[in-house]
């Protein structure tokens, strides 16, 4: 039987590293872009001689980083601006779908040039599901580091909360946010959506001389994740996550368990940051294809597949004890369908 198990493509196992690289790159860009702006203002003011020592260091570093790419930094560096909430790359403007929804509702008008800036993210979300949460979101970068910190703290003997709430809570947050946006006529998500808050606060800290009030809010969410519920904000509260989950409900790219190669070790379920249950084929609309379960699987029994729906429950893994017991009870030669499981 083992000979017939189809092993997944070897590279899928390493995608999780690529994901960390992606998260770290996005975060580094959020730090770099404000410094580039400061550099541009120094150039615009023609003030090199008047800069302080640390300002000169910023100037020199940024000039060293950018000089291979641009000849006129003051103008050309305008090609790279913004953050994950809304950003500019060259002449392409990209926005978070949550910003677009919030703005439509807040201003009670359709402003098409802006709505179209969310087109590419929406298309990707429809195909790949909640990939933004796992691969791009700058808050995820900090939240996952925070999760790792929680593991360290638990190992050192501290009691770390791991409460579970109803995952549908975040759809309520999304709905309430939209109602408040209508009532106040402004995009309230910008104030509570962690990636937007982080992008803004990093800019404030670097270019405007200090963090704003948003950083307190973000620290509170970090503490909530650390002390109350693992990845609690993303799982239960994030309005952006709610929107992405809805958009990615019928995503094409999914992860599935190869039941023939599974030994029921449950590492996939333990590692899942979003509290999903890959061991029992429970991915649902909230899987963000982060591939942590693929990389952790000791028997290589997780892989991608392309289908607009998850496969039905497959029952216990064929390498596990439970499957062998069932098979033993039913006799070796009966071709009873075991895929029903329990």
């Amino acid at each position, binding site marked *: 039987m083992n000979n017939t198990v189809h092993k997944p493509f070897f590279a899928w196992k390493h995608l999780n590293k690529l994901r960390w690289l992606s998260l770290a790159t996005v975060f580094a860009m959020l730090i770099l872009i404000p410094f580039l*702006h400061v550099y541009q*203002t120094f150039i615009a003011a023609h003030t090199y001689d008047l800069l302080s020592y640390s300002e000169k260091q910023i100037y020199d570093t940024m000039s060293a980083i950018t000089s291979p790419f641009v000849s006129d930094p003051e103008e050309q560096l*305008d090609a790279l601006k*913004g953050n994950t909430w809304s950003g500019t790359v060259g002449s392409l403007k990209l926005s978070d779908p949550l*910003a677009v929804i919030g*703005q439509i509702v807040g201003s009670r008008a359709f402003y098409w040039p802006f709505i179209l800036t969310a087109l590419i993210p929406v298309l990707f979300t429809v195909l790949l599901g909640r990939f933004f949460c796992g691969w791009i979101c700058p808050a995820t970068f900090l939240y996952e580091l925070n999760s790792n910190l929680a593991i360290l703290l638990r190992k050192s003997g501290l009691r770390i909360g791991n409460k579970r709430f109803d995952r549908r809570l975040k759809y309520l947050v999304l709905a309430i946010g939209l109602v408040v946006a209508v009532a106040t006529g*402004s995009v309230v998500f910008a104030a509570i959506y962690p990636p937007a808050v982080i992008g803004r606060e990093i800019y404030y800290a670097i*270019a405007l001389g200090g963090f704003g009030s948003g950083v307190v809010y973000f620290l509170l969410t970090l503490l909530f994740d650390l002390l109350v519920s693992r990845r609690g904000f993303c799982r239960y509260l994030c309005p952006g996550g709610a929107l992405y989950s809805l958009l990615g409900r019928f995503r094409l790219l999914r992860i599935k368990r190869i039941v023939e190669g599974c030994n029921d070790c449950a590492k996939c379920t333990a590692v899942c940051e979003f509290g999903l249950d890959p061991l029992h084929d429970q991915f649902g609309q909230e899987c963000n294809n982060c591939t942590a379960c693929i990389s952790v699987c000791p028997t290589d029994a997780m892989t991608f597949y392309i289908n607009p729906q998850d496969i039905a429950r497959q029952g216990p893994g064929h390498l596990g004890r439970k499957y062998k017991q069932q098979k033993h009870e039913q006799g070796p030669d009966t071709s009873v369908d075991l895929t029903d499981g329990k």
Partner: protein
Amino acid sequence: MKRRTFIQSLGVSAAATGLGLSPSAGLAAGGSAPPRYLRPPGALPEEEFESRCIRCGQCGEVCPNHCIQFFGLENDLASYGTPYIIPRDQACILCMKCGDICPTDAIEQVERKMEPILDKVSMGRALVDKNLCLSYQGKTCGVCYRACLLQDVAIRTGLLEQPEVLDGCVGCGLCERSCIQLPQAIRIIPDYT
């Protein structure tokens, strides 16, 4: 008796501090008059601007003059995260880059030429306080006129460089920024007031 007067005085002083505290508590909660700020050039009318702006901060990131700042919670909740300019700190040089980058056109795109700027930009209008202005006090100054990007369209000077604001003023605030008087004798009265 002594004790009673003591208690009475305690009560009075407590009441006084209570009364004294309430306005300052109002200040802390943002109940005072809002700061005199300008919106970036080409911004939509105030209410429309607040509903259109998504608080992405890109206008500040392209501002070469570093004049665009962002509201925290000090003004009111509706303006949280929106851009503003305090001309005395740093005034707008009308480079119009913020309008180019704004994804929602809460700050409209305006070409960096005289006609479109006069047509579309209205951040406010300068107002001269003749009691403070040095030129009106007989000491020839004219700094505001020299600082203006729209000389003789937005501002002109007469005898002794006495400034006179014209209808072409778009309210960029360069005159207020450059005024050598403190408090400044020329100020921008924002458009939204």
